[in-house]
């Protein structure tokens, strides 16, 4: 299936991902993160030992936002957020990572609303495991932005397609 044209460019989406992610990390964790080069053609992603958080969009545009990182970085982020120490991924880490995704993707949604119209968010889903793959339902590309935090890499991704109502007009 061919990719659908979204009314903002991948670079604009990447810029919004960059500012919202930096803001959430600085405000909630006191950490500076820096965005790397955007990948606008990300499709199948192999995940191994990673924590992946997914938040769905509904409204005039459907799709999802995702953040993914190593178990080590998930423990570091959760420790700073909750002022605790975590040596392994547990329920508190998964919940903290879900909330980080909720804040990053939620702020993205509001910043992108000028171009995309009103969107609503679903409840975050958090996955942790080895040797699994993530892809979008119809093969639609992600717009993926890598970040560096505490010497580890994490990724924030967005995928948007028109909703059936919008596509039917």
């Amino acid at each position, binding site marked *: 299936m061919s990719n659908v044209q979204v009314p903002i460019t991948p670079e604009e989406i990447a810029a919004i991902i960059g500012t919202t992610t930096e803001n959430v990390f600085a405000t*909630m964790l006191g950490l500076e993160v820096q965005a790397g080069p955007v990948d606008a053609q990300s499709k199948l992603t192999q995940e191994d030992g990673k924590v992946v958080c997914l938040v769905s969009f509904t409204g005039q545009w459907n799709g999802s936002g995702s953040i993914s990182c190593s178990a080590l970085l998930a423990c570091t982020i*959760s420790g700073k957020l*909750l002022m605790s120490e975590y040596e392994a991924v547990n329920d508190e880490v998964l919940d903290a990572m*879900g909330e980080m995704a909720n804040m990053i993707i939620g702020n993205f949604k*509001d910043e992108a609303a000028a171009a995309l119209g009103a969107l609503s968010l679903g*409840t975050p889903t958090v996955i942790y495991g080895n040797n699994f793959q993530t892809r979008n339902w119809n093969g639609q590309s992600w717009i993926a932005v890598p970040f560096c935090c505490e010497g580890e890499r994490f990724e924030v991704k967005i995928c948007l397609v028109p909703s059936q109502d919008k596509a039917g007009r």
Partner: protein
Amino acid sequence: MALDVLIVDDSAAIRKILHRVLAQTDIALGDVLEAGDGVEALAVLEKRKIGLVLSDINMPNMDGLQFLTSVRARPEWNNVPVIMITTEGSQEKVMDAVQRGAQGYVRKPFTAEQIKEKISSCLGAQ
């Protein structure tokens, strides 16, 4: 007199953070109670006299705006200060919450200072 506070959020992480922020305030804090959605929060209000509510908007079962409407519909709860703490930052959502009777609105991500200032201003205005 100590103030009992109710935190309403489906995220245990946010409830833990707000618990910590409340402990840093200079208000005379009583019990800090928690609820995971609006339905649980209404059940807490039925049983306890709550002096301040901090509530998310996007939650399962009953969201924060429906919860706020239910609170304001009850005369005995009409004066309980409710502060919304949410990722929802659109002007429409803010206006909706204010019209339904929210005394304060804080967008996530937030700093501890922002929460403390909002609580202070809400309680001071009473």
